[in-house]
């Protein structure tokens, strides 16, 4: 079993934020993946999707599923993160009031993504964008 999916995400489009995560959840359910693993994957993915919508101009999500792990790559074109260490701190946020009105922007997204991941890597370049690589193992 090896599957690959790709989704395009538009910055600012809050009505569609979560569509990709929802489709991935359905796929993982069909593949009979452990519900606890599914929850970790889709919570991390949804947080990442919301981040792209909230902060970037547009982005892509790549999902690779095999028998051992689920790999997520979230790549956006956007302002980038000047200080990743600070962005990883619980409570640090640069979200707009609009994002906060949607129920987010409390500076909890990136730490929560890391918590739900077995492997987590973030790269960012100011003025270019941010890349997030996440792996969740299927069999712990």
């Amino acid at each position, binding site marked *: 079993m090896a599957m690959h999916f790709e989704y395009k995400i538009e910055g600012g489009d*809050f*009505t569609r*934020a*979560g569509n990709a*995560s*929802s489709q991935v*959840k359905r796929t993982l359910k069909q593949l009979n993946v452990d*519900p606890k693993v599914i*929850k970790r994957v*889709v*919570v991390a*993915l*949804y*947080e990442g999707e*919301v981040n792209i919508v909230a902060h970037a101009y547009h982005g892509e999500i790549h999902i690779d599923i095999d028998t051992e792990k689920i790999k997520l790559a979230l790549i956006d074109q956007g302002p980038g993160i000047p200080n990743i260490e600070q962005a990883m701190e619980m409570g640090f946020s640069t979200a707009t009031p609009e994002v906060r009105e*949607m*129920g*987010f*922007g*409390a500076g*909890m*997204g990136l730490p*929560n993504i890391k*918590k739900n991941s077995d492997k987590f890597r973030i790269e960012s370049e100011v003025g270019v964008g941010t890349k997030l690589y996440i792996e969740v193992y299927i069999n712990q």
Partner: protein
Amino acid sequence: MKLKDVAEILKGKVVCGSEQIEKEVEFAFSSDLMSDVLTLQKDNVILLTGLANVQALRTAEMSDISCIVFVRNKKVNEDMLKLGKESGIVLIECSCSMFKASGMLFSNGLKPIF
């Protein structure tokens, strides 16, 4: 507690998922901040919120939350209803404040997560 008891205690209106109201739930979490909801580890949870938008439903979907109670007379709109049906989430509207709704459910045996 069954979801139909939740609706009855709060004098709420089940606007989506009425076929699931016999479902048992054990825990409740009250929040308008979806970032907090996304950190929950427990299963069998209902969400009480005053945040009436599609992201409340998406958050519930990703967190395996089977029912959302919208407090403070917040209304479920068309987009939310569509998403609720698609993802099989029970949606209840009630006119109580978040504090009152939480208190009533707590005193009737619904447990806090922490």
